[in-house]
């Protein structure tokens, strides 16, 4: 019998099977279910429709306030009150509400609610982030989450596997985001990665930080994939020390596992990379867009709001000033990230440089509040989506890049190459 890829192995193990093959349907044990303020109340309502008054395990249903906090309108404040009431009613152990809040996907990984070799789901499309620690992370909607909250299971179609073998040496100021955008430009949005699992491996992946792996797995949903995954290694072990809320063991693809396709990427050749407004797969190397004027800089989101990202922008902006024509907003991905950045002195450096810092949330990336874009705005964002209207007005343009490019550009008021500072 041929071997299995890491995702196939996890799906087999968690479905009580010896093996699985692509396109098979499996009924899989869910390690953790995440839901958040925006859809959480509806998810609990669906749980009640199933005739359940309690969740399958109150330690493994993770509730987070991220899209709507702090509430910008009375309507959202009321929604949040209803959400808090239903979470408390169910005696949920891990409730990350305002004061302990963060973007759900950051919380899930950083607080150790996701473990290698397990399957976790969340009611938000970027749940793919969990693959960074070697878990199968999957985005679902209300019905799936409610069923998983009721009985700890979810149905899946086993995905075909695609491998990205990443080699070479990371160049200075080049981050996980640049690889992510490079792959977006390489693969395009033409459907051939739909339903697939994307496995990232090779020497340049072992050399990539956990923050970079999270960025890479996060954006696999925007490629249309079912999940993205990095097999656990020494970086994973180190990261999970003192975090993991459960036992786990190493897991990897078999040497003779089958892949639908294998792509080779040498990061030595990748420089800072930018996604052009409106289309996620319209990708340009920075040289092509240098000099483009913009007026709003944004660093944050489940893609690039982590300590490593904040350290990078602090390094670039230290002792300097944000250009007078640019508004720069930083929203750390979680309270823990915020606290770590405060203790490291990064926040002081950034505020002195003229960066506005707001309390952790999804912020303008969800187009709801905290720095939304208006008519005529040109935003340079370290987030994940640039479709028309994503951050607010349909008459705003959004360029996507790494935090390093955002910071370097904020100094000049035009898109700039951080390697040429």
């Amino acid at each position, binding site marked *: 019998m041929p071997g299995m890829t890491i995702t196939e192995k996890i799906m087999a193990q968690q479905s009580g099977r010896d093996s699985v093959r692509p396109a098979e*349907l*499996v*009924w899989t044990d869910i390690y953790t279910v995440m839901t958040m303020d925006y859809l959480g109340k*509806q998810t609990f*309502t*669906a749980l009640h*429709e*199933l*005739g359940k008054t309690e969740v399958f395990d109150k330690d493994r249903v993770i509730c987070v306030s991220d899209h709507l906090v702090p509430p910008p309108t009375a309507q959202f404040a009321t929604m949040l009150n209803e959400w808090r009431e239903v979470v408390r009613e169910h005696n949920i152990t891990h409730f990350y509400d305002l004061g302990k809040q963060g973007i759900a996907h950051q919380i899930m990984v950083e607080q150790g609610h996701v473990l290698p070799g397990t399957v976790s789901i969340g*009611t*938000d*499309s970027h749940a793919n982030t969990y693959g960074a620690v070697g878990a199968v992370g999957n*985005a*679902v*909607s*209300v*019905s*799936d989450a*409610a*069923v998983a909250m*009721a*009985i700890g*299971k979810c*149905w899946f179609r086993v995905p075909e596997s695609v491998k990205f073998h990443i080699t070479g040496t990371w160049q200075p100021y080049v981050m996980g985001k640049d690889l992510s955008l490079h792959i977006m430009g390489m693969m395009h*949005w*033409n*459907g051939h990665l*739909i*339903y697939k699992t994307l496995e990232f491996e090779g020497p340049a992946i072992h050399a990539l930080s956990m923050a970079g792996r999270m960025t890479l797995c996060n954006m696999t949903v925007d490629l*249309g*994939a*079912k999940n993205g995954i990095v097999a656990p290694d020494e970086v994973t072990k180190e990261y999970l020390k003192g975090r993991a809320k459960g036992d786990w063991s190493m897991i990897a693809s078999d040497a003779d596992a089958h892949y639908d396709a294998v792509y080779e990427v040498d990061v030595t050749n990748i420089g800072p990379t930018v996604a052009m407004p409106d289309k996620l797969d319209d990708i340009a190397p920075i040289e092509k867009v240098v000099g483009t004027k913009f007026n709003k800089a944004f660093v944050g989101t489940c893609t690039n709001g982590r300590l490593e990202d904040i350290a990078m922008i602090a390094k670039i902006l230290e002792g300097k000033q944000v250009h007078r024509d640019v508004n720069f907003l930083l929203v750390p991905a979680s309270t823990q990230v915020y606290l770590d950045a405060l203790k490291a002195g990064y926040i002081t450096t950034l505020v002195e440089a003229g960066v506005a810092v707001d309390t952790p949330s999804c912020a303008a990336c969800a187009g709801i509040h905290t720095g939304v874009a208006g008519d005529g705005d040109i935003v340079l964002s370290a987030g994940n989506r640039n*479709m028309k209207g994503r951050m607010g007005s349909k008459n705003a343009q959004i360029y996507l890049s790494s935090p390093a490019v955002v910071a370097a550009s904020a100094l000049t008021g035009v898109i700039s190459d951080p390697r040429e500072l």
Partner: protein
Amino acid sequence: MATFQGTVHAYSGAMGDNIDTDRIIPGKYTKTLDVQSLAAHVMEDIDPDFKNRVKQGDIIVAGDNFGCGSSREQAPIALKVVGVSVVIARYFARIFFRNAINIGLPLLEIPDHNISNGAVLEVNLLEGSVTDTNTGITYKATKMPQVMIDILAEGGLVAYLQKHGDYVL
């Protein structure tokens, strides 16, 4: 429910590709628990008259990547509420696909076809076959697994589990 007939609303060419959940039901109308209210806005940005023309049992035919974008379950719910019996596309966005099954809206993938607006189709979900009664051509669609048909037959995942408590694949 495994075999039925319906009239086609076809979206072809560039207009038929990448129809996202915001175009199926704009996000601003989804902050409600009243699913019937979605009917007044279904497909309104792409086909404003659709909500007036659509009849119980009608079929939507689209191109690539139908249902991409936000993971909202209201998108398949809105189509179901106005009576759409099945959506046919070259392929579906992943989250839309599972949401449709979960709320009880059948989907079929046909990679290549020549089905036009107003055609009357005979659909057999069990066989995964679609016959265009105007041209007599039968298309082979991707077959839906039995368990999905069972979930659909009960009207969706929540209804299925209410009845069976658990399920076996």
